[in-house]
């Protein structure tokens, strides 16, 4: 992939983030009625409402509000929580590692399980393995991740106390404590994506297997593992990588509910509390942060895509 292409992708990402920032800003503006009064609640004094209005900068004209908000944003200042009073940036920085860990691990589970199962199913088309994979995948797509998380926790952490049922241990406390807390929620979260990937991988493998270049490779004596690794995987991966990019946002969003089930204080639980309290700065910060992550993931996917598919590199 050329530098020009990377730049173009970056520019597209920045445009998306700008649009998200506008939408996020509009969140407060679109609130029916007076947001300050809503936030302050029914028992608030006039002073409370005035304070909140001041804090949200609602007294200035909209354009000025937006410009000031953007200015703060560019300096990394996302405002302060209306309730805890802590800076939003700090709140997010504290909650992010847990959420990113779950999401990252879920992606890993999804790729290993999904691509693996899809590959086997595609290679053994029409066999019982193929049928089993497709049945499980159909089920996997229909199962809510938080329900799966509950079942897994109930089976592996409550009935059998093999793994901790709730909580989170940061990575610096060691790989196992971190992993042991995350493996169940991450598996639950990644299951639907694994199912989706398995379907796409299978389709892609079937598609590639009948291509003339596979026949050519066989005619050269390539077979078995060699054929799969050198000819099949790369070609079959091209459409699958695109799907993975689309799934990143879904996983990040899905982590909200799974965090609740697993008793992990992450971005999701932070966001839910913020919504219940109408803590607008925190919600705005959360949406913006999610958007940044998704844009970054998609940028990474685009780069991977270019690495896998040489045709994109020169295009």
């Amino acid at each position, binding site marked *: 992939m050329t530098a020009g292409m990377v730049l173009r992708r970056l520019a597209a990402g920045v445009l998306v983030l700008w649009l998200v920032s506008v939408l996020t800003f509009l969140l407060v503006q679109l609130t029916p009625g007076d947001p300050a009064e809503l936030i302050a609640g029914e028992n608030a004094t006039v002073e409370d409402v005035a304070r909140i209005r001041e804090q949200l900068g609602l007294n200035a004209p909209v354009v000025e509000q937006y410009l000031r908000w953007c200015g703060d944003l560019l300096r990394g200042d996302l405002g302060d929580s209306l309730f805890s009073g802590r800076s939003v940036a700090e709140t997010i920085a504290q909650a992010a590692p847990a959420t990113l860990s779950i999401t990252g691990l879920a992606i890993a589970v999804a790729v290993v399980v999904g691509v693996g199962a899809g590959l086997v199913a595609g290679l053994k088309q029409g066999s019982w393995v193929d049928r089993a994979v497709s049945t499980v995948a159909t089920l996997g797509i229909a199962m809510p991740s938080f329900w799966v998380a*509950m079942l897994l926790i109930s089976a592996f952490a409550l009935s059998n106390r093999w793994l901790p049922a709730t909580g989170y241990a940061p990575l610096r406390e060691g790989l196992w404590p971190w992993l042991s807390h995350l493996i169940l929620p991450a598996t639950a979260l990644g299951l639907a994506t694994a199912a989706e990937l398995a379907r796409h991988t299978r389709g892609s493998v079937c598609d590639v297997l009948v291509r003339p270049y596979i026949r050519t490779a066989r005619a050269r004596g390539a077979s078995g593992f060699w054929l799969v690794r050198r000819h099949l995987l790369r070609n079959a991966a091209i459409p699958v990588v695109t799907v993975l990019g689309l799934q990143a946002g879904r996983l990040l969003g899905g982590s*909200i509910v799974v965090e609740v089930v697993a008793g992990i204080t992450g971005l999701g639980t932070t966001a839910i509390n913020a919504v219940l309290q109408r803590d607008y700065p925190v919600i705005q910060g959360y949406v913006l942060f999610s958007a940044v992550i998704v844009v970054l993931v998609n940028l990474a996917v685009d780069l991977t895509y270019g690495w896998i598919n040489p045709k994109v590199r020169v295009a």
Partner: protein
Amino acid sequence: MTAAATLPAPVRRRPLRAVLRRPSSAVAFAFLVLLVGSAIAAPVIAPHDPDAQELGNRFAGVSLSHLAGTDEFGRDVLSRLLYAARIAVTAPLISVGVAVLVGLPAGLWAGRRRGVVDAVSGRLADTLLSLPALASALAIVAVLGPGLTNAMIAVGIIFSPTVFRVVRGATLAVAEETFIESAAAIGCSTRRTLWVHVLPNIAAPLLVQVTILMGVALLAEASLSFIGLGVQPPDASWGSMLGAAYRSQYDAPYAVVPPGIALVLTVLTFNTLGDALRDVLSGRRAS
């Protein structure tokens, strides 16, 4: 969701019959009929008042009077499941309705007018789609306030770019067809062309998308109700029942099973019908 750019195949005369000829979708359709039936007939067939509490009989197991046991307030789980079926049917309809209401006209407009309108709305749709869906839904619920209707409207807004894309893609593809040109040539107005000629041709991909979105909407409803932003007590949806079951996990570990299975079966039903419709309407054979 890749159906966007391809030209819709002409709708077969009896797509429903073709769909029902497959065993899997026949079963799915039967389940859907059963679900809608029990949602409508819930007051008649439910053995108990879903909100009647029997505090002396909490977390009761399966018995003749409580076929699926009771919950943390001693309410009959089966009756609550049946009443919750009403929400399972109506809540996704709200979301899909909102999505179609926003996405259909916008998609038709962008697909017909092209140019700046298309570029701007396309960008906006891409942006919304690039956000984690549940995160955006949360943000919208923050504005509208919690509650089932608000939550489902939020989900509908999140879905609208998907509908927009499908409609826009189909409109673009149909607009290339010569019969649209001839309609214009004999003096059909743009609006008339859209409603009379374009709409029937995008019905197929839209129908497929809507069916699949029903399942996604139900999952979203369950998620939002589970975390308390959707249906509010004492009403019950399968998602909120799962939430209650989660909170009483130590007292009644199996309470998570019935609402979960109801949820999975219903989502499975929508997905199966959606896949079958897609195959039938695009002229593909059963895979």
